[in-house]
């Protein structure tokens, strides 16, 4: 019970901090002081109290987009195990639901973007839909590999139970998997080199351009939902890439929090030292990551 409570508190409170850490890391690389670590919290709080402007073109769907995105992120966060603790809801097959929930969010985000009738946002929607078609198979390849390795069909047992013992035997396939999942983590969360979360006004944007017309609480929902998605997918990635367990239940939470913050630093470093890819390169990288994951599968299918 205590652990479930900690789980819920962490997923509700920690996500914006990751954005803060990423921002601070990037500021460090740029030689700036940067915004405080807690800036994303202030931003969300400020947005929640602001008024909203709705375009006359839009319908209820425009408002449904952010709401569904956030609800999906919250639901998915209850399915993902954190650190060495299983998730509040865990059952055989939960990984399929986990993956499809994000599909639901994507549907409504893109629909909300199209609702504005702006060609700019349509462009972002088209890119989002296209790239995630290519990213989706990778996630499922990873799930197949994990199911095959662990002999389990639930995220909690698949990721927490045996992964430490699996590393020595199946290191090659897990390394391939970690590599491809890191690419997916960056692509799905709209980070550099796939997307730039900082600017709206470039024709090469994906996520930010879709939410261009949202304001006030709606935009707050979007920011919060995006942070939570980063948190949830980051936790998924960490299980494979950083399978260290302390043994003590409470120490495990500490290890997890530190690992998440480290991940945020790594993402910040990647964002600082890499330029954004040209749009035509993105599908190629995504397909390459799918093939990496397929290699991982071949290795475990013997």
């Amino acid at each position, binding site marked *: 019970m205590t652990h479930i409570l900690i789980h819920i508190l962490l997923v509700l409170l920690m996500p914006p901090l990751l954005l803060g850490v990423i921002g601070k890391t990037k500021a460090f690389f740029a030689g700036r002081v940067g915004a405080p670590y807690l800036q994303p919290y202030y931003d969300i709080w400020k947005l929640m109290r602001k008024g909203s*402007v709705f375009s006359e073109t839009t319908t209820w769907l425009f408002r449904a987009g952010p709401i569904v995105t956030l609800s999906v992120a919250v639901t998915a966060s209850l399915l993902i195990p954190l650190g060495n603790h299983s998730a509040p809801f865990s059952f055989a097959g939960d990984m399929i639901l986990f993956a499809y929930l994000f599909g639901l969010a994507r549907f409504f985000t893109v629909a909300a973007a199209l609702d504005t009738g702006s060609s700019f946002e349509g462009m972002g929607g088209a890119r989002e839909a296209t790239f995630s078609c290519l990213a989706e198979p990778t996630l499922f390849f990873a799930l197949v590999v994990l199911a095959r390795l662990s002999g389990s069909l639930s995220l909690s047992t698949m990721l927490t139970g045996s992964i430490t013992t699996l590393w020595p035997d199946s290191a090659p396939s897990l390394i391939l998997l970690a590599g491809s999942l890191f690419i997916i983590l960056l692509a799905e969360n709209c980070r550099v080199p796939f997307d730039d979360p900082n600017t709206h006004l470039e024709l090469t944007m994906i996520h930010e351009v879709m939410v261009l017309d949202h304001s006030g609480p709606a935009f707050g929902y979007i920011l919060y939902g995006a942070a939570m998605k980063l948190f949830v997918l980051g936790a998924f990635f960490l299980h494979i890439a950083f399978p260290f367990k302390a043994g003590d239940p409470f120490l495990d939470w500490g290890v997890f929090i530190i690992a998440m913050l480290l991940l945020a630093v790594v993402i910040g470093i990647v964002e600082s030292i890499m330029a954004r890819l040209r749009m035509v390169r993105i599908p190629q990288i995504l397909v390459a990551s799918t093939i990496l994951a397929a290699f991982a599968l071949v290795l475990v299918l013997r």
Partner: protein
Amino acid sequence: MLTPGSLAITGAALCGISGIPGLCPAISARLGQRIAVFLVLAGAATGTAGALWSMLGNLTETWTLDWTLPFGTAEIGLDPLSALFLLLIFVVSGCCSVYGIGYWPAEKRGLAFFFGLLSCSLALVVMARNGVFFLLAWEIMALANYIVLTSGGDSPEVCEAGRTYLVATHIGTLALFALFAIFKVTTGSFQFPVAAGLDASPLPATAIFMTALFGFGLKAGIMPLHVWLPSAHANAPSHISALMSGVVIKMGIYGLLRTFSFFNNIPLWWGILILVAGIISGLAGVIFAIAQHDIKRLLAYHSIENIGIIAMGIGAALIGEATGSPSLVVLGIGGAFLHVLNHGIFKSLLFLGAGSVIHASGTREIDRMGGLARPMPYTAVFFLTGAVAICGLPPLNGFVSEFLIYFGFFTGIREGFSKATPILALAIPSLAMIGGLALACFVKVFGATFLGLPRTDGAARGHEAGRPMLAPMGLLALLCLLIGVFPAAATRLLEPAIRAWAPGLSEEGTRLAQAAPLSWITLLALLLITITLAFTILFKRRVAGAARGKAGTWDCGYANPSASMQYSSSSFAEMLVRLFATMLRPDCHKPALRDLFPKGGRFSSHVPEVVLELIMVPWFMKSDVKFSSIRRLQHGQLHLYILYVFLALLALLAWAT
């Protein structure tokens, strides 16, 4: 005598006669249409009751008809497998029939008659237990379908679509003749063999498998046998398209399932072949769908995709039978059954929604619509429900059936290693990709049709559909939600059908309700809905409590944006079409940009039906030239044709003795 079978037959008969009063000139056209709808509804209610009764009670019965034809006794039977399809037939026929009141002018009287005949023959197809009787019902179905499909007008496209359909369906029927002839040779009678009564290893079984796959696959529209399907669905009246896509093509699936159920000892390659065919159909179907501009053609390609998903489930089940894995059988076939029902529900919902949109905007071109969610709020919500469901997203019904199929694949991979494991493992990411592409496609359709600003005057004048059109859509949308949230209720119905299909499963063995975490799906679906509602309330409070402004969409400083500058469905799909250009062969005409100040130009892009237009038609043309000398035999002189028949009979007699 009140039994499930008698209810089902009464239902079919009521549907069959429903159109007759309307044909009588003494009865006014409107009254005739009302009577037809009333009779179809009565028939649908009776038939649904019979089907549900048979499925819930796991009841099987057969009735023998006395006929003097020399093909053995004609049997009509009802078992849970037939009942599953009957349920679909009656529910969708009822909905489409009501929709017709608002959609179809009553003055065109013929349609109601053939619509009733079509529903009746569909029911007879799934109840036939004798090869010849089956073919009879099959042929009535095919012809009635041809007539309703071409009732939309005499335009060249409709005629062309009808012709292609007619040729395709008869090639399929030809394969079915061969199929039942081989059956007759193998079993000695036209009667259907008992379930799992035939050994699948000897050669005739392979021949049966291949002819069934061809004949029934042609009806179901499995790639590359789908060539008739897109244009037929696009050119039929919308409620007919709904019935065709939701139910008629499922008869191909029924035929395959029924044929497979006759065999025991099924070799592994059957399952692998069906699974691979499913993956190809699914991926190619959705990729072609993305490139379409015509809303109904697009939906038709999605039927091919969903038939592919159903085939993937069937393939998994056959692999499970071959490798002795009951949980794979139960999950695969359970998923396929549920997807048959689900696709019937959401696809007819989408076709009916498309019909309303076409009615309102006067065009089938998605790029000429836009902004219809304002004048048509209910249609928009119903269409959205169908769109989310067909993408397989929670918490609607499409998710549940795809979940079962996924879960089957995962279960199959976890258990040991066989020759089928790699293909099962590949099926999972393929299904994921199908899901992702379907999402891109439906967000495009929904966005371009209902959201943004109207692109043409026709779309701007759009109006909400009438109640007879909204009510069936509402019912179907509600079913999508109910099955999605409470899948255990639906699988309770499927359980006996699974046993009827695979009698090899032990009675107390694996059940779908135990094999799949259905109560968890219910729980999480309810949780998702609750969280969404909570956030909605919070959001409303926040928005209501603060200042609120209205403005146009931000246009990035552009001075004079217009509705035609919105991202259209073609622009939305452009990246994906380019990614798959090798397969889609898009035909683009771009204006050449020469001077510093280029003049106005036209851009157009079109994706042909590649298999038909670039492979089959050229091939047929070539063989037409090659075989033109044989043409002399076909001269149109009747008496000589009769002579041919006589000579053929004589030759056969000589050969037989």
